[in-house]
């Protein structure tokens, strides 16, 4: 039998990962992505409420000031959430991957003048360097390392929810749960919000799907499943009929976009998670 020569592993230095993570978190926190800015401009054009228009104009003006002065767009520069795609033909050299990421977060939050917002759950003592980060790793074919940095603010994360629905609740039950969650969030989550919906899998997978859904460009529909694309469109209309409006001060634009992702689930379950993202939707990525 022929023995195939094993593919040589591609080596990626830990120091390069640190530098990349550092730069991504600073960039994400100071420069709002084009898709979010475009969605905000569309919202400004569509908003009927005068105060709502003023709020949207201020949000856009703030993004310009933050970018031009390298200042954080929001004072809440977030918990450092990372999504990694690690090619299975990659070998990290020069230190553990987790340490390389932690050091990148440390450097970003110190050198970028970003707020350190991580603490002990009970004593509330600040860890003072914004670590530990929240790291989600997927092992994928290939020899690349894709790093997505997503600083996530506390206000909108607090308004997020997961629920284990019964199978009988179906698609309507999911929509109802999303609407309830968004209405309850009100002004707290800094509308206009982006709504990530994760359906299926297990409890924790539904949550992860909901967060991953937030990585899709704002306003882009689900391309894999027509039922979800329709649900997104319907929820977008229904959420914007709630009247909450920009900053919760009343208006038409309560959401900039709804993104739903789905996976099969257990025959007993219908897990659903709603991850709410404020209008300062920050994510930046680089592939090494």
């Amino acid at each position, binding site marked *: 039998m022929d023995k195939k020569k094993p593919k040589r592993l591609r080596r990626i230095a830990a120091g390069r990962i640190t530098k990349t993570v550092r730069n991504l978190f600073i960039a994400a926190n100071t420069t709002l992505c084009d898709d979010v800015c475009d969605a905000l401009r569309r919202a400004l054009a569509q908003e009927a409420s005068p105060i709502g228009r003023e709020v949207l104009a201020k949000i856009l003006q703030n993004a310009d000031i933050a970018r031009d002065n390298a*200042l954080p767009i929001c004072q809440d520069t977030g918990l450092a959430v990372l999504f990694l795609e690690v090619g299975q033909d990659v070998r990290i050299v020069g230190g553990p991957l987790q340490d390389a990421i932690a050091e990148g977060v440390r450097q970003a939050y110190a050198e970028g003048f970003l707020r350190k917002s991580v603490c002990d759950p009970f004593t509330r003592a600040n860890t003072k360097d914004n670590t530990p980060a929240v790291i989600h790793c997927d092992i994928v074919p290939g020899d690349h390392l894709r790093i997505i940095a997503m600083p996530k603010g506390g206000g909108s994360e607090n308004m997020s929810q997961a629920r284990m629905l019964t199978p009988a609740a179906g698609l309507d039950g999911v929509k109802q749960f999303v609407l309830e969650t968004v209405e309850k969030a009100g*002004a*707290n989550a800094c509308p206009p919000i982006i709504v990530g919906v994760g359906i299926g899998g297990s409890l924790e997978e539904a949550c992860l799907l909901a967060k991953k859904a937030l990585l899709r460009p704002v306003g882009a529909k689900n391309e894999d499943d027509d039922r979800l694309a329709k649900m997104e469109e319907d929820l977008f209309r229904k959420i914007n009929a709630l009247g909450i409006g920009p900053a919760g001060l*009343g208006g038409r634009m309560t959401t900039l976009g709804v993104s739903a992702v789905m996976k099969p689930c257990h025959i007993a379950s219908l897990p659903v998670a709603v991850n709410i993202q404020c209008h300062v939707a920050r994510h930046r990525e680089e592939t090494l």
Partner: protein
Amino acid sequence: MSPTTSADQDRFLRISTPLSAEVRARLRAGDMVLLSGDIYTARDAAHRRLHEALVRGLPLPIDLSAATLFYAAPSPTPVGKVIGSIGPTTSYRMDVFTPTLIEHGLRGMIGKGNRSPEVALAIKRYGAVYFGAIGGIAALTAQCVKHMEMVAYEDLGPEAIRKLTVADLPLVVINDAEGNDLYAQAQNDWRILTE
């Protein structure tokens, strides 16, 4: 929500801290104001400490009766700047402490989001006022801060109490002394019922 033209100026009431009884009595939910003067940052951890001191009868590091609290923790100050970015955090987390603080003299609060019925009641009973600031425009809001100094609980890092001197900080009155609530009114006005 800051005035850009002279016609715009008329829509804003200019007020200063400490907030007088007359001003507080006059403010109504929906009023847009430009606030100037000294205010203090205090959020979750600082509230816990202030509340604990009050319950135990210990002295406070700030005079509550003259204070307006801004539920905020700024990002670190870059070299050559007065302050980093700053904006409101969500207020409901302070609700468990707020009625006690109001009983002890607090009359002005700045944050975002709904308050509990207990806080709304204390606002009405004591003639206090709750202002909303816009979240997520923190680089812009920072331009209203002219001076910042550390006052108390420095170990809390971003959550420490800092005194800010602000000029024309744009705010909206959310809960007034008459018991009105702008968020509820505004949502009611803009909701589309047929959906």
